[in-house]
């Protein structure tokens, strides 16, 4: 299985015109973007089997703070699903509930079911969940700062058992995706924010997961890189067949990439549906996309009025 995958991968890998160190990284990025755009086909309407279902879960921190109050969602195999919502809505908490990392923060799933490929994984160990094929890229680029880029990437492959060779070839693949990382030989802690985000995504790729949970991958990235990251997300999905559950603040990009979207507020899913229909929703336009009508509101002229906040 793994061998097959890597075969697929080596075919799918682009020829390396950008491994030449002479070409500035942004040119490479742009080139990548183009190729990604060329590949991009609109995602099929979600009809596939769900690989992950979250059924009415409730999450409590510190035994008292109820954060999720009945969240349900389902992620179809091979698709990108996005989860939107304001700060503090519980998006990250939902991801952590899925990946098992909740327990490291003294949180617990107290009700509901989480099923991954037919198996219940609620409250399982994070390492077991990773082995099953779910990998979370945590909010805020949590790379291992006192290791080099390469060591970080090798760490991503920790759970893999398919031999040093396959890992090595994946390492090359990741570095081809992010050529800038190749040039950084020092400690990862000294990378800039964007570089660290690339590393975090690259590290997830190293694990060869079936499902990646991405928590705000575009945070702090430059517009170019945001596009790049999203094109990588699409590519991962398309070329490697990886399913993604994507938490984003950049609703426009996220809905553009996803087939399905969920909107969370105050620990509950308040709206869901195909991404395209969400994009047409007036409320979504108003609160997530910036401006309901054809013209984008200017940030400058907002100060005079105070809008209602539905969730307070």
């Amino acid at each position, binding site marked *: 299985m793994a061998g097959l995958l890597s075969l697929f991968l080596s075919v799918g890998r682009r020829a390396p015109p950008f491994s030449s160190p002479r070409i500035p990284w942004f040119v490479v990025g742009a080139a990548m973007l183009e190729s990604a755009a060329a590949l991009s086909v609109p995602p099929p309407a979600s009809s596939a089997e769900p690989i992950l279902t979250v059924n009415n879960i409730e999450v409590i921190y510190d035994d008292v703070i109820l954060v999720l109050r009945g969240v349900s969602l389902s992620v179809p195999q091979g698709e990108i699903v996005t989860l939107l919502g304001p700060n503090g809505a519980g998006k990250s908490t939902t991801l952590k509930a899925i990946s098992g990392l909740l327990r490291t923060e003294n949180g617990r799933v107290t009700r509901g079911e989480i099923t991954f490929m037919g198996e219940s994984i609620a409250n399982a160990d994070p390492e077991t969940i990773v082995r099953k094929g779910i990998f979370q890229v945590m909010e805020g680029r949590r790379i291992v700062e006192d290791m080099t880029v390469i060591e970080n990437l090798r760490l991503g492959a920790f759970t893999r058992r398919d031999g040093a060779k396959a890992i090595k070839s994946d390492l090359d693949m990741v570095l081809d995706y992010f050529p800038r990382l190749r040039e950084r030989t*020092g400690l990862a802690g000294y990378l800039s924010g964007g570089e660290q985000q690339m590393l975090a995504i690259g590290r997830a790729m190293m694990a060869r997961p079936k499902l990646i949970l991405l928590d705000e991958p575009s*945070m702090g990235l*430059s517009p*170019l890189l945001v596009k790049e990251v999203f094109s990588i997300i699409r590519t991962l999905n398309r070329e490697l067949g990886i399913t993604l559950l994507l938490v984003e603040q950049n609703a426009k990009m996220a809905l553009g990439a996803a087939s399905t979207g969920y909107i969370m507020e105050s620990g509950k899913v308040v709206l869901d549906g195909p991404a395209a229909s969400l994009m047409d929703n007036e409320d979504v336009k108003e609160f997530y996309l910036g401006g309901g009508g054809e013209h984008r509101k200017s*940030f400058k002229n907002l100060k005079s009025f105070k809008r209602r906040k539905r969730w307070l």
Partner: protein
Amino acid sequence: MSEHESILDVRDVSLQFGGVRALSKVTFTVKRGELFAVIGPNGAGKTSMMNCISGRYTPTQGRIFFKGQDVTALPANRRTEVGIGRTFQNLALFGHMSVLDNIMVGRHHLLKNNFLTGALYWLGGAQTEELRHRRDVEEIIDFLEIGAIRKATAGTLSYGLRKRVELARAIALKPDLILLDEPMAGMNQEEKEDMARFIVDLNEEWGMTVIMIEHDMGVVMDISERVMVLDFGQKIAEGLPDEIMSNPYVRKAYLGEDDDGEREVA
């Protein structure tokens, strides 16, 4: 003092980390009362520039003048007194303190009480002084609409609120120049709008000079007066937002746009 007198003068600043050249010979001037934006790809050296201005790093070359005074070698903790305040790219709140105390820390250099008078509280005038500043802090709290969380522990807040508290703390410093490092990262549309409103008010009503690093081009375009572009530690361009947006190099290298001219809000 005239409106357009310069408040910050950065001259030929270079910064080197071992082999990495984070900044090379960057020169720019920020005028008093301006809302100045810095953009550039990741790793371009924007944060490093901020760090030089706020004193975290000392430039390997070049000088920095603030209000005509050479501050290149001034220790970071003394820069609050001359009037420089900042927020951080990655949250840097005092996680175990309440929001209120976090903001009160911003008053540190304005308060006179010390461990002796503080311990004697009622006797040495510390109480009156603390309460006086508390009043000012409440004003900031009202301004940023974080009254509801003033007693909450900062570390337990959601990301967006934490960013707001951080801004409040920087305002509490009463700086003349405030440096904002990606104030809107990780925020949704609505929160960005709030934040933009605060920054504009800060600049226009509170009269603070603002230097802002931001990746959201929509925000940068709308609220900044001038924009500087860094790449590879070098200054690529500087000018009015529209000029910058039409700079082909910026379009390609930073925005990653094709030539179809559509303005993308990323």
